């Protein structure tokens, strides 16, 4: 593991740098640390930072850029006729990557001789056979250009990592010299180190911004790519969702409306379960419950929010679904045959509602508690009962906050994945029957992006457009909710 050794080497140099910087400063001050501008620690830390930051920065950059450069060069050497009908350069490059890795492994195991590979004395069939014998994954018989490209890739990566090790070590040593030379009693080591730490803190804080940028860019680029292959109007207004399974048929209907309808319908059912229960629970907890009951019931309800969604998904698939079928299904308790299978809007909606109860109740509880006591006292003083006070004074005052809480819960419901993947079904339908299976945006993102799909096909790229839709929807709801909540808070603070 040369990379690991490189990291260890840099760390060793930086450790040495710390000791050197510190001792040099102390020695120059004649052993009297009072003559130093900063504490001795800072002189060492200064050298340490000057070694570690540039060296690791370079290392990370190199590791990110090298594969891109290598891929570019390698894919340039592949002749155009190597890309077969119905294939793409991406698939060929994947084959090259696989072959290159297989060769490295096979050579390491001794199943292939590196010399034989280098002088080209083996023909492609022999190489393929040797790789297969060594247990490496090779899909079909390799062709000469692919083997050459794979070897080029291996050679370039090998030289690349040698150069990288040299450059990184040079950077570390340069940092060492620079830092140690600075270590003199008059040098303001603490200010420099603190400035460095400050920059790192800012860097850490900007990761949130970078993440958002990353999300937006990865969604936008792929969505634009998708709209180049598939008309946007058909995506936004299409009433059919029927991706072709071959992946390259081009005859897919990718309308988002059935998915949006499924998403909204399931979310509506979920909110119809969660909002009344959550709201009444919040009112009871904040207005009626004794402190002891509150101390028990509130955390217990919140456990519902801490349970992983995969658990709810399984609960929907294996417990609630069959239960609903036994009530509403063929030969069920009600004697109606509304529900055909366990996966349905109701199944997913009810389970999602259970999951959302604590969201609604906790947020509403906080908001109801924030209503000033004076308003309640005023109402009691006029002779209102508790429930009248709640209905006519507390809830209206808390209404904006409660609406915000419900919107946040709705955004959760729209973005929820596991429950609908397992509980809602896979068929996209525009129907009003809540006992039918429908599917959602999130479920389709999962189904379009898992499996061996070609990332360049519209069937896979549509997932990014769906993701974009989802992102915009939930973001809109969140911003709206936060806006409402914040506006409300200003009234009483």
């Amino acid at each position, binding site marked *: 593991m040369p990379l690991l050794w490189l990291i260890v080497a840099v760390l060793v140099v930086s450790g040495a740098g710390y000791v050197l910087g510190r001792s040099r400063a102390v020695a120059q001050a004649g052993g009297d640390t009072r003559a130093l501008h900063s504490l001795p620690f800072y002189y060492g830390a200064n050298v340490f930072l000057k070694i570690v930051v540039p060296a690791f920065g370079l290392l990370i950059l190199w590791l990110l850029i090298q*594969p891109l450069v290598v891929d570019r060069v390698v894919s340039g050497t592949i002749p155009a006729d190597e890309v077969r009908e119905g294939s793409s350069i991406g698939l060929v490059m994947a084959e090259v990557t696989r072959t290159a890795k297989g060769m490295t492994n096979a050579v390491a195991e001794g199943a292939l001789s590196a010399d034989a590979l280098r002088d080209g004395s083996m023909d492609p069939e022999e190489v393929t056979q040797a790789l297969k014998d060594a247990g490496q994954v090779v899909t079909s018989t390799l062709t000469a250009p692919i083997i050459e490209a794979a070897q080029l890739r291996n050679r370039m990566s090998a030289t690349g990592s040698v150069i990288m090790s040299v450059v990184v070590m040079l950077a570390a040593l340069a940092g060492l010299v620079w830092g140690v030379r600075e270590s003199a009693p008059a040098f303001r080591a*603490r200010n420099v180190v*603190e400035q460095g*730490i400050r920059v*790192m*803190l800012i*860097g*850490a804080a900007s*990761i*949130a*911004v970078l*993440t958002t940028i*990353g*999300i937006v860019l*990865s969604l936008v*680029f792929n969505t634009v790519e998708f709209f180049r292959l598939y008309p946007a109007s058909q995506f936004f207004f299409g009433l059919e969702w029927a991706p072709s399974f071959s992946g390259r048929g081009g005859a897919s209907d990718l309308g988002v409306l059935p998915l949006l309808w499924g998403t909204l319908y399931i979310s509506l059912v979920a909110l119809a379960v969660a909002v*009344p*229960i*959550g709201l*009444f629970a919040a009112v*009871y907890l904040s*207005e*009626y419950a004794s402190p002891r009951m509150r101390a028990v*019931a509130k955390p*217990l*309800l919140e456990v*519902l929010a*801490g*349970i992983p*969604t995969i*658990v709810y*998904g*399984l*609960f929907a*698939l*294996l*417990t609630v679904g069959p239960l609903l079928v036994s009530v509403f299904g063929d030969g069920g308790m009600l004697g109606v045959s509304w529900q055909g299978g366990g996966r349905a809007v109701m199944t997913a909606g009810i389970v999602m509602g*259970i999951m959302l*109860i604590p969201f609604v*109740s906790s947020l509403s509880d906080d908001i109801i508690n924030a209503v000033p006591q004076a308003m309640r006292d005023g109402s009691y003083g006029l002779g209102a009962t*508790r*429930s*009248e006070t*709640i*209905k006519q004074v507390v809830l209206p005052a808390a209404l904006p906050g409660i609406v915000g809480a419900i919107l946040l819960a709705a955004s959760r419901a729209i*973005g929820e994945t596991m429950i609908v*993947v*397992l509980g809602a079904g896979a068929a996209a339908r525009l129907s009003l029957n809540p006992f039918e299976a429908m599917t959602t945006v*999130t479920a389709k*993102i*999962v189904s379009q*992006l*898992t499996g061996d799909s070609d*990332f360049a096909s519209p069937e896979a790229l549509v997932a*990014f457009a769906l*993701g974009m839709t*989802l992102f915009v929807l*939930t973001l809109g709801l*969140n*911003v709206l909710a936060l806006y409402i909540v914040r506006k409300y808070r200003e009234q009483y603070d």
Partner: protein
Amino acid sequence: MTDATSIPAAPEDGRRKSSLRTLDARTRRRNAAEKRFRFYGLAAILVGLFFLVVLGVTIVRSGLPAFTQTVVSIDFTLSEEDYAKAEGQLFKTKAYEQIFNAALVTSLEERGVEAEFDAKAINRIMGKPGATIREHFRANEGDLGTPVQFELSAASRVDGYFKGRVTRDGFVDSRFLQASDLDLVDALAEAGIIRQAFNWNFITGADSGVDNPGGAGIGASVVGSFFMMLVVLFLSLPIGVAASIYLEEFAPQNRFTDLIEVNISNLAAVPSIVFGILGLAVFIQFMHLPQSAPLVGGLVLTLMTLPTIIISTRASLKAVPPSIRDAALGLGASKMQSVLHHVLPLAMPGILTGTIIGLAQALGETAPLLLIGMVGFVARGYPDGFIAGFTEPNSAMPAQIYTWAARADVGFYEKAWGGIIVLLLFLLTMNIIAIILRRRFERRW
């Protein structure tokens, strides 16, 4: 106040409208409404708790069977000739199976088990014992010729019979199991040859193929989750703490700070699947990191948990009173020293509590893992080493549970529930640690 008596007395002619002692209809109605309202609230809480109980009972009831397994325990002697013969065959495990089943038939006949049976029935009852037997004798050649006690897992349908998944009424004979076999199974159970045993393989083993629910274990994916959590811990804790320190202690009031704040609160509400898309596009498509690797899963979950950790860390930094900072500054510490030497250590218990809760959240998260290819990958073994643990494809607990739930064989559902019990035990442990930390170190200033 001497005029108080001048308030007109109640009319004496009995036209008195109301009294404090007897409730009039309207008050009764209002009181009833009050009671009703109160009851609704209580009912709502009870319904919520009811759901919790149902969920818990379902998990325990459906999941516990995964921890037991029906085993056939039997003494078996393999002679050296048979060993040599079996090793010489093309289908070696099959050969072992035949030898073993023949031996079982003789042994049962000797014992005089009171049921009709033939070699085929034995074949149906046993799972696939060949591989286990072969491995044992290849590892311990000295055992050849002496009786060895084996505990071999029974076929998955026999397992189902013991756990109530397969019942006698409505039983349809198939090539997997016939009704007459159940009599044999009962007889064997009576003779103590077939019994229920704790399924260690479920806890330590790896995933099996789609046709062998009995052999599936969650161990390998626990290891995958562990490596992912290592990544999350070592990235999100330092980054989260650094970001919080900056925002809480140093950030000036300007647009950039506002931008960061808005981003953090928005990221906390972005659906987890969107982080999966980000991971797929950036880490796998763009950076070419290996698919299905715990490293990638850890990176995605780090980005996802960062907002949670930042929010809780800021809360605990805010809880440290300003007098601590002022005292440090007054003694000549720099701003950075006051924060790093005094505020941060005091806030550390709160930060750790928040981090553990964030980790627990990340541990149970499934959706992003689906997109970076942790599903569909059959984690057949443990990673080869520490580095390989990060970079080699593996599954993670929630992804493994999803994989099992999506498989056609009903036998896997039991495993999925069992996996949930394991997952919830981990979550419970983490949350209890967080609560203990909070209880022990929480300080009111």
